[in-house]
């Protein structure tokens, strides 16, 4: 855009990346991670029930509980356990799952990509669908617009679980177009992705449309139109481009929604992923696994918000001046 070009030429050259901002973000990110695992650690301690008892389950025989306590270091004080846990984390060791009795890193590594694949594809599909819904409905008659927004409302408010079962019934059990379960090939990804993408699309479409409508009343759009630019180009290049800025703010929430929805989607479709792991770990008080999942979620949040922050300064030149 012409305005942006002009601005860079008049400014002293400082590079595109705002390094100081990045460093501050990284430091605060580390703090967030530490706070997240610490709060999670002590919250889990507060839940009633002795871990050695839980691990023993309905087994009882002399020496069993002591053996379990010694095996997992549960005979030490909570604070000692916390320090040992932090020490392990710093050395990159996530510990061993109480229940699955395997290194947590292995447990997660085996499953995390399946969830990432599902969430990323669903995110992209959801975003594309949202843009299509918004662009198609904008400037149409009231009937079309309200029909669209009702559809979006349905997408966002219908439970993921129900959508998943419904899609399975129709496309898998009835028409046999897609397999019910597994992560084999793209066919098995279709239904879970649609299940997860619909609420995202519904939510984003509403925001995008509203934002576009506001942008369309801005004076610069009048200027653009005055130049005789085709209406479709006005919408797609100018209005949509500007409208996407506020949408970026929502990306954090969308990612949270995708990860949360993945838990349910994975269960319904019998797909591998961290959703299933998390569910089991929380109910079984499998602290090392819960901690790793908390860490993972916090890490994603920190990375995404840092990247967004940097992107803002690149996309919106006004922020760079404020540094």
């Amino acid at each position, binding site marked *: 855009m012409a305005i942006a070009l002009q601005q860079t030429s008049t400014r002293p050259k400082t590079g595109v990346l705002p390094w100081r901002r990045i460093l501050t973000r990284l430091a605060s990110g580390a703090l967030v991670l530490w706070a997240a695992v610490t709060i999670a650690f002590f919250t889990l301690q507060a*839940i009633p029930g002795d871990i050695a008892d839980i691990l023993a389950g309905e087994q009882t025989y002399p020496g069993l509980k002591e053996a379990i306590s010694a095996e997992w270091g549960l005979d030490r004080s909570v604070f000692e356990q916390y320090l040992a846990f932090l020490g392990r984390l710093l050395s990159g060791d996530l510990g061993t799952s109480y229940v699955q009795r*395997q290194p947590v890193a292995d447990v997660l590594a085996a499953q995390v990509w399946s969830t990432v694949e599902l969430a990323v594809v669903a995110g992209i599909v959801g975003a594309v669908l949202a843009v299509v819904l918004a662009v198609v409905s904008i400037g149409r008659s009231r009937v079309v617009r309200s029909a669209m927004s009702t559809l979006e409302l349905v997408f966002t408010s219908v439970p993921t679980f129900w959508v998943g079962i419904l899609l399975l019934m129709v496309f898998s059990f009835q028409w046999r177009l897609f397999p019910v379960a597994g*992560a084999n090939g793209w066919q098995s990804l279709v239904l879970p992705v649609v299940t997860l993408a619909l609420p995202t699309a519904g939510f984003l479409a509403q925001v995008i449309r509203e934002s576009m409508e506001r942008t369309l009343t801005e004076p610069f759009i009048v200027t653009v139109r005055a130049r005789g630019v085709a209406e479709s180009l006005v919408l797609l290049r100018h209005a949509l481009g500007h409208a996407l800025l506020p949408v970026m703010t929502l990306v954090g929430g969308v990612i949270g929604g995708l990860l949360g929805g993945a838990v349910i989607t994975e269960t319904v479709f*019998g797909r*591998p992923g961290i959703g299933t792991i998390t569910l089991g770990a929380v*109910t079984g008080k499998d602290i090392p696994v819960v901690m790793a999942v908390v860490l993972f979620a916090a890490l994603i949040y920190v990375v995404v918000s840092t990247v967004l922050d940097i992107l803002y300064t690149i996309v919106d030149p006004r922020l760079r001046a404020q540094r």
Partner: protein
Amino acid sequence: MKNQFRIAIVAAATFALTACAGGTAATNTDDGDPVTGGSLTWGVSVEPVCYNPQRSGQQNSFPIIRNFAESLVGKDADGEYTPWLADSWEISDDGLTYDLKLREGVTFTDGTVFDAEAVKTNLDFVADPANATAAGTGLTNFAGATVVDANTIELKLETPDAAFLDTLASITTAILSPASLALEGNDLCAANADLVGTGPFILSDYQAGQEISFVANEDYDSAPGYAAHTGRAYLDEVTYRFLPEATVRTGALSSNQVDIIEGVQVTDTALFDDQPGYVYETGPSTGTAFSLNINTRIAPADDVRVRQALRDGFDLDALVENQYLGTVQRAFSSIGPDSPFFDADLVDSWGDDVDGANELLDEAGWTDRDGEGFRTKDGERLTIVVGYPEPYIRDQRDVLLQGVQAQLKENIGLNLDVQSITSAQFTDELAKATWSVYPNTLPTSDPSILFRSIFGSEGFLYAKAPEFALDDLIAQSRATSVASERKAAFDEIQQTVVDDARYIPLYHPVYTVASTDLVHGISFEPTLNSPSSSYDLWTSK
């Protein structure tokens, strides 16, 4: 069960013939000989967290684990012990020495030879509390093993134990490769090549959260005495797909995406039971009933009259029938009707006596009523809390309890407060002995072991509280191996716990299996009540 299977087969065959409408030869191979080859896919309800038979405590993990892990002794549908990895055994007159002759020519699937040394390594390992195995529970009497020669082992007990053969038949004492047990810091819970047994299948592929696959062990020839055939498994390959949603399992079977499913939802039974193209079967019930264990130490249930009123204050037959549509039996006793030790005298001896229950409560002093119609005494409402640990809730059992709750309120003004609690909270209450009512069912095993768990002071419900436990009777049932003497002790336990209403049996849970009619040889493993391994399965696909 066999009869039921036959009927299903006949029904299916009849349909096939009708469909052929006078065709010359029926192509249906239902009555034909088993075919070797092919593969089948299961849809199962639970993904095991641990695949090590000696460590897993998950009932639903065992049908999968049985494909590669075998026990020394088998147990057939009549409760008789059969040879398996042990060809024969002799028990000394004092009941303290077991001489086992082991099957010759068996090898673990990693090539290690199965011999007396391997058995000793396994038993010593599971009996050592330091290894914290689930198998340790049954081996508290075990005093040690001596290798006599390569194929003979002598096992010593500290006290006579009628449940010892059952322990040897249990999947928890399955024999794993000594090479696997020797792996330092490896719990063998992961489904990978480290986990090695002598079974008819070898683990070939595992994708967490999705499925586990096995291929046939070509050299296999150590089938248990109760199996339908000997030699290698019929199938070349078998896959267990994890489908936790019941609706999804049903859909996957009806759309032919899997061949056989376990855990058929009650409302879906009609889709498969007696339907052309499908086979539906239920397993035996020899474990404990789904029941309410009432803590006799906690008021107001410390009063036997209150417990008895609770027991008789509702119409259990109607509740079970409405909820499970005839797929399960209402229970009268603590152990299942398919167990040889089931006490038939208890049938129709208790329950649904509202007038009697009201009299008992009047007698116990719960005579006033509050605004909601509940009985009170000294201003206290008659409330008994049921803490149901959330992870154990399945088969709509919480809905059944809500039905009981509603009837007790209506009939006798007792407030049965059914709560869903975390397993952590339950463990905590257990440790402090403050649990009030615990709804549970135990997977089958020798009744001595079952009763010790829930009524004995070595068990988890009345741990270290011998004054509330039935230790003498349990010891009596275990000390003799004369079946009639054992039965007398078991009968007395079954009657005692129902008479004083510390235990209210509700229904006998069973495993359900549905498959297409191209799957044959479905059976249930008597030591587990759950579907057997895939060893006897074959397909005419």
